[in-house]
């Protein structure tokens, strides 16, 4: 979903650590270091990393730099290989059959649990290599002045991945600006204990 499209969904974060000029100067390099690596020619289950906001096929920022005035703009690309469960089931059954055929020669009939798991892993690996990963892209914008980050999704799995990968890439912590954390940021420090203890108000009366 492009940031410039008519309507977009956002999750807001505040970066806990302070922004310094030195840190801001390092960010483009860190983006490049933790950029997306393609897995089309592998059997890897998934891959994720940063790509250029203007061109999600570009992990080198050749199309445009990430710096835009006091913003740093980039996208999180996540490629995932999904083997449909029915396809996996079929090929696992085939592998079991073949195994039983092979066992006939040695006179055995029982397949151990460990061997079954081994077959499962082999089938999964073989099938994964035959399926192309499905790409997904999520835009992110970092306001370096206010040190806030906007992620263009509300999907909780993507949010968790983004928070973890952000920490890994920049060694910075994201605080979600949910009502609790936002209240603590907007209200006076003397009110923090009160926010911690608030109970739902009896709007309709008791």
């Amino acid at each position, binding site marked *: 979903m492009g940031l410039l499209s008519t309507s977009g969904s956002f999750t*807001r974060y505040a970066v806990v650590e302070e922004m310094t000029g030195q840190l801001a100067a390092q960010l483009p390099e860190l983006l490049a270091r933790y950029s997306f690596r393609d897995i089309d020619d592998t059997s890897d289950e998934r891959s994720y990393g940063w790509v250029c906001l203007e061109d999600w096929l570009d992990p080198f920022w050749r199309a445009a730099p990430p710096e835009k005035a006091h913003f740093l703009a980039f996208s999180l690309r996540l490629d995932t290989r999904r083997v449909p469960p029915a396809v996996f089931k079929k090929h696992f059954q085939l592998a079991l059959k073949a195994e039983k055929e092979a066992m006939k020669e040695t006179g055995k009939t029982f397949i151990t649990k460990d061997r079954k798991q081994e077959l499962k892993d082999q089938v999964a690996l073989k099938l994964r290599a035959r399926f192309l990963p499905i790409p997904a892209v999520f835009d992110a914008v970092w306001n370096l002045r206010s040190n806030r980050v*906007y992620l263009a999704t509300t999907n909780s799995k993507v949010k968790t991945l983004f928070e973890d990968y952000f920490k890994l890439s920049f060694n910075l912590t994201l605080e979600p*600006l949910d009502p609790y954390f936002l209240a603590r940021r907007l209200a006076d420090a003397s009110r923090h204990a009160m926010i911690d203890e608030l109970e739902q108000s009896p709007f309709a009366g008791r």
Partner: protein
Amino acid sequence: MDLIKAALQAPVVGQDFLTWLWFRSEKNGWNFTLKDGGELNVFLEQRLSVRGGSGENVEKAVVTGPHAEFTEAKLGLRNGKLVDKSLLRFERDGNTWMVLLDADSFSLSGLKTPKIETRLEDGDDPDAAFLEKMMLVEQCMDYVDELFTQFLKVRLSPDWNDELRAFREWLEEK
């Protein structure tokens, strides 16, 4: 950063806020004064959801419609439910923003800003459209922050009981 505390308190604060915002915006004639002295019109639009109970006993009522009076939602409020999602329309100086705000997380879904010009002409800054869009997106977030600040001011003061009394009178009006 206490994430467990946040998980417990965020829905409490968020639902109180959206419930208050419905009442306060209607009471104010949909008009709020911002800290820069300007005025912001805040309307609740087409889609509103109220929630009550907890755990397995959660009950929800979602009201939609172009000219929804929210009668069902108000009935929900009377039965102790609170607003947990609301489609908001902000208007200022002829510009309009729309956003679906979630009470638990404050995630901003389907945020629509005023239209921007995305076609570039010769000599234009290639980032012009991006910067204009970001300014408009952040403006919407600022409006949410300002309304939330106004809420916190009364919520965290002894005046909250008076506010609740006024709320109940409003609730009985229709």
